């Protein structure tokens, strides 16, 4: 029973595919997967938006949206309808072609990430050998789209916002890659299913998730910071800094294109946190040995929603970083430590089993974090703000 429940969707798709002629079956299976992903994640998007607004409200000691439907449940539906019906205003001087293309590219590249994501046991659309590389390749092209958006709307604020966004995404893409590389080094393969399989084992009741290893935890920390920056969320949401540059690169967008941007943003958040769970939180594997009977995909999506909650939580608490603080933090704190983490992972792998490697790796990482952290604190970046006026 548990097995059937677990493989519910897989069996379902097989069943659907069986109706197709043999030649098309394989294509048909993939098509079904795509359709599922394209429908599932916007739904999750709606729920996430609601959660965010309700969560933020609660954090800020106020109710969230509670007018539309009982306890504001139908708010996302209202937003959706609003965005569809709103007039789509395109500035005259805007570069219409690029202006139109930008949101599309954003959304498409965001969704591409899910192709290689193992959402459950045997529930991966395409099991690429270089899955992680594919994911990062797709992730890299979002910057171009953001730039297209910013530039095409011929608006100072949007251009400035786009520039900031691109700079930020580029800066944090490197530590993102490096921290995930640690996982690749340990498992020895770029394929995400192998990574999850490597974590899907238990000693006693505790799972072999990478997060419970010193380098894993440090890596996850760096990964988390990079992801928040990569998706322009919470402390790093300078591009849409309302107070300074209106809505950043999607100022000139309205109506459905704006909704698309919004959707793109959230889907990117989902995919990047999904990657995080597969790399560090064991993907679809159960947290404890005795909970393996619960279907794998439930674990995947619960971890996913947990990450989203963390994002919302972060947004509610941390103040926005300044651009130079943000950049310095990336290049002077996150990048060096992720490089160090890579080294520590290498040492971890070759020190062999036994308690020495635990102590050694954790000691090294602890010392590094403390030293670099203090050094960062003392530097003026986080001190009072220094103004440079245009001469």
């Amino acid at each position, binding site marked *: 029973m548990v097995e059937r429940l677990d493989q519910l969707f897989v069996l379902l798709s097989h069943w659907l595919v069986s109706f197709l002629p043999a030649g098309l079956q394989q294509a048909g299976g993939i098509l079904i997967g795509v359709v599922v992903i394209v429908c599932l994640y916007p739904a999750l998007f709606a729920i996430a938006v609601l959660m965010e607004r309700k969560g933020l409200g609660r954090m800020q000691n106020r109710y969230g949206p509670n007018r539309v439907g009982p306890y504001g449940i139908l708010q996302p539906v209202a937003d959706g309808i609003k965005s569809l019906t709103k007039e789509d205003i395109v500035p005259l001087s805007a570069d219409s072609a690029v202006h139109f293309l930008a949101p599309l590219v954003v959304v498409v590249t965001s969704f591409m990430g899910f192709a290689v994501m193992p959402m459950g046991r045997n529930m991966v659309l395409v099991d690429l050998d*270089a899955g992680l590389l594919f994911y990062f*390749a797709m992730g890299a092209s979002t910057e171009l789209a953001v*730039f297209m958006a910013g530039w095409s709307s011929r608006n100072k604020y949007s251009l400035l916002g786009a520039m900031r966004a691109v700079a930020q995404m580029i800066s944090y893409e490197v530590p993102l890659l490096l921290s995930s590389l640690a996982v690749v080094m340990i498992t020895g393969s770029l394929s995400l299913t192998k990574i999850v399989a490597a974590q899907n084992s238990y000693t006693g009741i505790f799972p072999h998730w990478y997060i419970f290893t010193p380098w894993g935890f440090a890596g996850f920390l760096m990964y988390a910071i990079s992801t928040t920056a990569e998706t322009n969320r919470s402390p790093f949401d300078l591009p849409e800094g309302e107070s300074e540059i209106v809505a950043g690169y999607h100022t000139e967008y309205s109506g459905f294109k704006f909704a698309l941007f919004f959707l793109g943003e959230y889907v990117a958040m989902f995919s990047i946190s999904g990657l995080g769970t597969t790399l560090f939180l064991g993907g679809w594997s159960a947290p404890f040995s005795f909970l393996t009977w619960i279907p794998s995909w439930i674990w995947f999506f619960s971890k996913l929603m947990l990450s989203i909650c963390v994002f919302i939580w972060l947004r509610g608490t941390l103040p926005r970083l300044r651009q130079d603080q943000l950049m310095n933090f990336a290049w002077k704190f996150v990048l060096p430590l992720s490089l160090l983490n890579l080294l520590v992972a290498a040492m971890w792998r070759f020190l062999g089993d036994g308690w020495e490697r635990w102590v050694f790796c954790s000691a090294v990482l602890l010392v590094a974090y403390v030293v670099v952290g203090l050094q960062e604190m003392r530097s003026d970046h986080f001190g009072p703000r220094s103004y440079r006026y245009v001469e």
Partner: protein
Amino acid sequence: MSVISYILAAITVGGGLAAVLLKNMVHCALAVSLAFAGLALLFLDLDAQFAGFVQILVYVGAVAILVVFAILLTRSSETPKDGGVFSPTWLAGLVVAAAVFAVIGWAVLNSVGGLSYETAVPAVTVQQIGQELMGRYVLPLEIVALLLTVATIGAVIVAMHEKEDAK
């Protein structure tokens, strides 16, 4: 050359042509990134999976952005082109390019025509590439690593905004 490859080839060549012919610089940049993406797909079509993804990651991800940044920093997109986008001696350039294409095309048709290998699809795994990188190509890898660091530092220094200029 399957249908898909033809399509992809068409996309790539179209992107290339657009990059060369378009007036607006940013459009050229985007066209060229399209060409890069098309090329990556061609690589995939040629079963060079790793190369394709690296192509996307490097070219579409980084170089395109770089080009765009360059365009913005040099304000090439706004300056009105008085003499037109093409240099005065564009015809000579065109002729030369055509000659080059003719020669290479002729060489290709005359030489490689005989080499028709219908070989099996080489199943290349990232594992193998890793082995190769760390095996036979470890020296080139180190050198490329060094080259990249030097290039980055060099580019930064060259393009850096000297202090005295600021005054």
